[in-house]
């Protein structure tokens, strides 16, 4: 039964139940009828016979007394045939027991008793025999015999058909009503509930409700179902909103790559940021084990080794990415990603484990940020830091050099002036004069060294003027040839047009000299050095980071020497970097070149191939002011000496004495002061006109040469001034030199130089 019920729908089960119940009820009725029929059949037959015979018995005395056999026969026949059809024999006997009248339906089949028997009944298998007395008043005047054939069961059954039909009809009606009731009360609500459930499942429409207006359990069920739908619907809405938020967040994080994978390494999520970052589309990546696509194999290996050491177990393959997060440790590591187009980028990849609602690991979430720019900025910063250190180093060297140069120059200046004086003494033999010249050369070399130190430290005062680079090179070429020796040829290819630059010619000479000396040192035995000047108009900045568009004069120095490696090239402009043997180079040569070129707003490009030589290109801004200055600058033999009075202010005793000697020797009246204060005191008490103030720049009492100039000019605005300095001048002070109409004389200077400068200043208007 249970097996049957489980297979069928409720409707079928209920229908079956009703059918079974109806059938059972019908069966019960049938059994009851059968029992009733079988147990009451005979008594009922007897009753029926007796009852009907009573009527006959009332009319029979009349026929016996008055009517005769004929009327008795008629009565018996009518009775047997019409009142009791089952009666086959009806016989009437008179008081004496003689047959008075008889009805026999079939005389052959049934025999009429000959003699009267006592009143009573007797059943045989298929017939009922009844003897009844015929009484008139209380007197028996005859006997009636009835023989009835009992109808067989099948003949009796039809009389129950109506009852059976009625019962069956009633049961059908009841069943029908039950089915209607069940449909209305049970099946229809259930169908509604089912339809609602299906609708909700198919359309995800949680606003649907099961409309069941019952107040029974089904109504309660429907209400509970509707409430459940509301709750689920609310949760569904929340979930959708949360999902939408997550989706929006994923889509909006375009700068950060979010990549999720399952436990097998299959990518389950690849957001917009990841698409931007890696160049793959989500469709290409999702559901594939693709992290290898954008990782460098060697990075994975390195990381695996690193993790193996850290975690003390073998790490390889995909677990390189998951090992740390599996242990609940944060995994934040820098990686190089390879984009779809092959380019690389640096990222920080943070990997965290994802867990499902039961807390079991469900996958991994990787969040990668592009740190290429950060990396670049860091590199930049490091470079800047290096440059700062470099600058600080240079500053330190410069200060040292400046400090040394100040005193050194004073000494050298004194020496040069003395040598000059002695050389020009009358009676000096040509041999002696040659020795003096040699001494002067030594001192000049020392002075040059100092000058280089100052240049490098950018302490040198730059005296820019328009210079034709070709002419300048032409002037120094002879000296350079002497410098490089006979094994090396020096070629100069000048530009066809003028190569005007606004530059400090001394500094440019220094640049050329340093480059050529370096070239010479790069050539071991013999070779060639080529100097070329060109004018270029740059529109493309090219490979050099310092290049800029514009018109430039380019000086190229090419040698056929040993060349340099890329590693060496990186350092050649650093101060004190040298490839030369200990004692042979100062390491300042190229640093000085770099410093000078920078100060002229130019830049240097170097090309070198080890074994085949080096090419330096110096770019200097070409000047548009083309003055016909060369004609104005004829080297006319300077007039030396005079009768003017010169106020010499110099704190260095040697220099003061030397200069005093030189100037007096030249015929000037010289008044000396050891510092600015003394000079002011003298000025206040002067008795003759002072034509020229020759003063040191830096003096110990705090009053500088410039200060002194300003004080004295208040008194005599036309006072001519030469400021000497072996040290440095601040840039602002450089400007002052121009505005204050001050001539600058760099220490150390020769006697001749001093005389010439003094005369020039005095001659000037």
């Amino acid at each position: 039964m249970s097996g049957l019920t489980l297979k069928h729908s409720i409707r079928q089960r209920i229908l079956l139940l009703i059918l079974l119940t109806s059938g059972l009820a019908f069966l019960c009725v049938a059994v009851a009828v059968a029992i009733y029929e079988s147990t009451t059949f005979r008594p009922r037959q007897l009753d029926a016979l007796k009852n009907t015979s009573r009527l006959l018995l009332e009319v029979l005395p009349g026929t016996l007394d008055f009517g005769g056999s004929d009327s008795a026969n008629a009565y018996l026949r009518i009775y047997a045939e019409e009142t009791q059809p089952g009666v086959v024999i009806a016989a009437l006997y008179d008081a004496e027991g003689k047959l008075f009248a008889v009805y026999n339906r079939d005389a052959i089949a049934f025999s009429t008793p000959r003699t009267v028997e006592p009143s009573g009944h007797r059943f045989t298998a298929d017939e009922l025999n009844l003897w009844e007395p015929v009484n008139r008043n209380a007197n028996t005047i005859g006997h009636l015999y009835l023989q009835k054939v009992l109808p067989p069961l099948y003949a009796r059954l039809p009389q129950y058909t109506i009852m059976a039909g009625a019962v069956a009809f009633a049961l059908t009606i009841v069943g029908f009503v039950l089915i209607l009731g069940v449909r209305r009360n049970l099946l229809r609500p259930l169908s509604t509930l089912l339809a609602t459930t299906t609708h909700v499942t198919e359309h995800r429409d949680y606003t649907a409700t099961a409309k069941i207006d019952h107040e029974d359990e089904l109504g309660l069920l429907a209400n509970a179902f509707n409430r459940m739908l509301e709750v689920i619907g609310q949760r569904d809405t929340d979930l959708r909103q949360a999902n939408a938020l997550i989706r929006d967040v994923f889509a909006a994080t375009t700068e950060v790559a979010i990549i999720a994978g399952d436990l097998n390494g299959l990518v389950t999520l690849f957001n917009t940021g990841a698409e931007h970052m890696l160049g793959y589309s989500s469709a290409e990546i999702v559901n594939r084990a693709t992290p290898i696509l954008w990782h460098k194999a060697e990075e994975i290996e390195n990381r695996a080794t690193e993790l193996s050491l850290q975690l003390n177990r073998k790490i390889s393959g995909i677990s390189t990415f998951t090992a740390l997060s599996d242990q609940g440790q944060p995994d934040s590591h820098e990686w190089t990603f390879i984009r779809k187009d092959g380019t690389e980028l640096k990222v920080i990849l943070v990997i965290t484990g994802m867990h499902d609602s039961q807390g079991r690991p469900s996958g991994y979430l990787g969040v990668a940020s592009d740190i290429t720019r950060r990396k670049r900025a860091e590199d930049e910063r490091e470079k800047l830091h290096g440059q700062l250190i470099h600058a600080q180093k240079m500053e330190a060297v410069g200060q040292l050099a400046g400090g040394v140069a100040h005193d050194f120059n004073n000494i050298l200046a004194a020496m040069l002036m003395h040598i000059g004086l002695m050389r020009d003494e009358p009676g000096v033999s040509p041999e002696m004069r040659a020795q003096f010249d040699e001494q002067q050369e030594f001192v000049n070399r020392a002075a040059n060294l100092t000058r280089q130190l100052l240049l490098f430290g950018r302490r040198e005062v730059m005296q820019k003027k328009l210079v034709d680079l070709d002419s300048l090179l032409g002037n120094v070429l002879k000296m350079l040839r002497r410098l490089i020796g006979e094994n090396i040829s020096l070629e100069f290819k000048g530009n066809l047009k003028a190569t005007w630059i606004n530059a400090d010619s001394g500094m440019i000479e220094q640049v050329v000299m340093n480059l050529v000396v370096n070239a010479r040192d790069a050539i071991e035995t013999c070779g060639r050095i080529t100097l070329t000047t060109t004018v270029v108009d740059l529109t493309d900045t090219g490979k050099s980071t310092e290049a800029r568009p514009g018109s430039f004069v380019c000086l190229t120095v090419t040698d056929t020497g040993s060349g340099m490696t890329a590693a060496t090239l990186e350092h050649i402009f650093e101060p004190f970097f040298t490839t030369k043997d200990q004692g042979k180079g100062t390491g300042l040569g190229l640093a000085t070149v770099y410093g000078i070129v920078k100060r002229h707003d130019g830049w240097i490009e170097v090309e070198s191939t080890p074994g085949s030589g080096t090419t330096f290109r110096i770019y200097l801004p070409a000047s548009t002011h083309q003055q016909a200055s060369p004609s104005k600058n004829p080297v006319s033999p300077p007039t030396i000496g005079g009768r003017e009075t010169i106020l010499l202010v110099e704190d260095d005793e040697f220099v003061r004495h030397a200069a005093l000697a030189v100037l007096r020797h030249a015929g000037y009246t010289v008044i000396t002061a050891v510092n600015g204060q003394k000079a002011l005191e003298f000025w206040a008490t002067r008795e003759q006109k002072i034509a020229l103030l020759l003063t040191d720049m830096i003096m110990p009492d705090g009053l500088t040469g410039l200060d002194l100039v300003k004080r004295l000019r208040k008194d005599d605005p036309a006072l001519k001034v030469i400021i000497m300095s072996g040290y440095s001048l601040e840039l602002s002070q450089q400007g002052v030199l121009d505005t204050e109409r001050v001539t600058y004389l760099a220490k150390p200077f020769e006697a001749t130089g001093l005389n010439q400068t003094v005369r020039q200043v005095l001659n000037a208007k």
Partner: protein
Amino acid sequence: MNAANRISAPARRVPLKYLLHAAALCTFAGAGLIARAEPPVAAISTQTIAAASQPSMAQESRVKAAYLVKFTQYTSWPASTFESDTSPIVIGIIGPSPIAADLKQEARPITRPRPIEIRTIATPEEATHCHAVFFSRTDSYQEESWLVALKGKPVLTVGESDQTIKRGAIIHFVAEGKKVLFEVSRPAMERSNLKISTEMLRYAKTVRNALEASN
């Protein structure tokens, strides 16, 4: 219809068969009416009896005696005519008569509910104490006066003369060939305050409903 009522009571116990029984009853009652409307039926019965006996006075006397006794069995008198429940039904015979012996013989077996007593009477006065009085053909001369005396009295008067009904008797023996039949006068019966069963009236040759002209 009286019979139908009696049948119907037991018939109610088996409702399914009620209609069947009712139909049968109607048929049966109809058959009864037919029988009463056909005197030959009764005549055949009498004929049977007559055929068995010799056509003699003695035969006829015995038949009439039997009839007389049977008549008393279908007639009901007012209760006041009996002294008790077991008081006999008295049949009066005028003077000595040959029928007396036959009557006694016929009446002997009847004991319930009342016995039958045969009494020879001589005066109409005596006749009023009887329940039934038979006037033979020989009594014809005094029949009329006696009947006048018995008029309205609860006495079943039976005669043989052609004038019997006219004279006020209730039953008249009619000889038809060899058969003995009887007529009944309903007015006389009713005047005498007697009731004769329909079971007997059914077999009467004639039931006269109006009084014939009499003196």
